[in-house]
């Protein structure tokens, strides 16, 4: 984690504090502007739109980013899996719904595996390039399957209860989707940060060569990370579809960039070895609070993206600048000592 100032203990220097402060700032700022419409319960309701599908995709992206790789095809993977689900269910005439969902998850897994195989087989091509082309490939397949049609008429519990339903919890209406995401997080956290197989990702991402020489099957780790990323993308597509009610081949266009933005905001670095689940969750909350507020004030997708871009750059840039200042000061101090 980039140190903001040299004096603070390591625990307080974590990116998460910066994010938490930003979350509170955003909330109170918009709450002051729109005290009626920008309230905690309404925000909680909007997490369905801004948090869950992107959140699952970001969970997968985090694994790949920790390895120092990147996967741009996640949104296309989600679209292809959702397409497979929609077409195999065929509005009740095809497979039973559970089988369609299973097929969907398998499709996501296969897409991820294919990415992973290409990545470990063609090391001179960067994952960015490979997934850039599989992005068009997966969307192309979805397009071949669906053409310009859309597939829908899903069971009511899926399109209605899961997509729009909420459970009363402690006097608040919590969307069921959000509960699903929150239920996964503890297990994900324990696996990534507290088990050997999770920590191996960090090891491989920090120094791939050293990890290989110390006996890690780095190729297998990469393959697993990409496959899991595909699976998470499919899960993201599952929730996205339950929210939109139908599938088109264009579904979720641009979500890959949002997933990367969330993971990077949460402390992951595209050069690998870094990332935290707590940071990711805070980044998701921050983006939800920000997007919801901006939508209320301006109702304009471009302004929304502009602020996300600014936020992304500032959150990465500011600690870097402080770090550069600290480095310069340290060098000056050393020079002074040498001069004596």
């Amino acid at each position, binding site marked *: 984690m980039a140190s903001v100032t040299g004096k603070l203990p390591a625990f307080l220097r974590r990116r998460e504090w910066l994010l938490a402060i930003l979350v509170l700032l955003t909330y109170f700022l918009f709450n002051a502007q729109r005290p009626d419409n920008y309230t905690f319960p309404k925000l909680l309701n909007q997490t369905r739109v801004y948090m869950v599908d992107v959140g699952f995709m970001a969970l997968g992206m985090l694994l790949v980013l920790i390895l120092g790789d990147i996967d741009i095809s996640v949104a296309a993977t989600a679209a292809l899996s959702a397409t497979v689900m929609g077409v195999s269910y065929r509005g009740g005439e095809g497979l039973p719904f559970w089988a369609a969902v299973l097929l969907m998850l398998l499709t996501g897994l296969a897409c991820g595996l294919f990415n992973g195989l290409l990545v470990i087989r063609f090391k001179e091509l960067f994952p960015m390039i490979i997934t850039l*082309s599989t992005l*068009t490939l997966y969307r192309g397949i979805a397009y071949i399957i669906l053409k310009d049609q859309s597939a829908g008429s899903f069971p009511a519990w899926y399109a209605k209860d899961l997509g729009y339903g909420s459970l009363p919890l402690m006097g608040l209406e919590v969307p069921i989707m959000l509960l699903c995401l929150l239920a996964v997080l503890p297990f994900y956290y324990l696996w990534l940060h507290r088990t050997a197989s999770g920590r191996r990702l960090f090891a491989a991402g920090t120094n791939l060569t050293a990890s290989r020489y110390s006996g890690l099957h780095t190729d297998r780790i990469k393959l697993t990370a990409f496959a899991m990323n595909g699976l998470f993308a499919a899960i993201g597509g599952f929730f996205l579809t339950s929210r939109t009610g139908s599938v088109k081949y264009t579904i979720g266009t641009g979500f890959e960039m949002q997933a990367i933005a969330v993971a990077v905001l949460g402390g992951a670095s595209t050069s690998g070895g870094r990332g935290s689940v707590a940071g990711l969750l805070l980044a998701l909350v921050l983006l939800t609070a920000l997007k919801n507020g901006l939508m209320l004030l301006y109702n304009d997708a471009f302004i929304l*993206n502009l602020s996300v*871009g600014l936020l*992304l750059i500032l959150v990465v840039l500011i600690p870097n600048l402080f770090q550069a200042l600290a480095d310069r000061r340290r060098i000056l101090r050393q020079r002074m000592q040498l001069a004596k």
Partner: protein
Amino acid sequence: MSTRQFKPLRLGRLLRNRELGLTLVLLALIGLIGLRNPAFATPGNLQFILGDTSILIVLALGMMCVLLVGSIDISVPAVMALSAMTAGIVMKNNLVQADTQVLVDGALTAATVKTSTPLPLLLLLAAGVGAACGLLNGLLIAYGRVLPIVATLGSQYILYGLSHLISGGQAIYRKDMSDAFIQFTRGNVLGFNSKVLIMLAAFLVLMAFINYTRYGRRLYAVGSNAEAARMSGINTRAVTLSAHTIMGLLAGLAGMLYASHDNKVTQDMAMGYEMYVIAACVIGGVSVTGGVGKITGVALGALTIGVINNGLTMLRLTGNSEFWKKAIQGAVILIAIITNVYIKRAHERRVLRERRL
């Protein structure tokens, strides 16, 4: 194993040239598509492809500079949109319509003539805006130590947002454009489309810059070993900054070509185009880790993508060709990139074999 046999052979030496391999692949592609549809391999269509691909080549040249120093720029389409939008708004605001009579086929006909800010000024403005965007990216990456993908991902969002803000949600259409601008990419000078001429100019200038000047060679130095370059007195940050500025400038110029070609400027212009630009560079043999790549290779890579794009339309697979083009483009590009890897590996093996004396 006797390896001297390779040296006197001119042909072997020629075959070792990667650009030649790519040219052969390109010619084979043209031949194969031409077999299926003879209309494809005619000079007229090939010239059309060249014109169509010019924008991609201009952008790929800039992307090559950025990739050479080990950076990347995915904000290219947003830079194009912002530059074209800025110039478009200036053009729209200065537009003067006049009714005159024009001589058509020996008879006077009533016509409306639209004039506006001179075209060279508009091009300069767009290039300037583009260069400023590139400079900003470069500052973030070289001096702010933000990783290239993150920085340009952020600036893509920001620049698209800005082009939306300055336009007030209004796209620029043909009616807002001066005649000179509409005719800009349609006119023929010396038998060549003006897009091709601009592309050739950019190509020659960059070739001279990259291959024959000290500053150009520094791009390779920084990309192959930044630390060594710094130790030998090269200001690596300034080099990265200039690479991004060149990219921005070319993107600004390409934005104008794109706008004139399409006869419109929208807020989400060219969205997703960065993928073709990067793919053109990779097919052309540029390494994404930096330091490797030739300018002729990049042009050939872009042409390969142009031929594939046009060829998929001309192949007339079952029925709707636009459908197939959209559907299998990704697979074709993936195959092209992977074939390229195999050619490269074979090439490296041969070099190693020759060295083992």
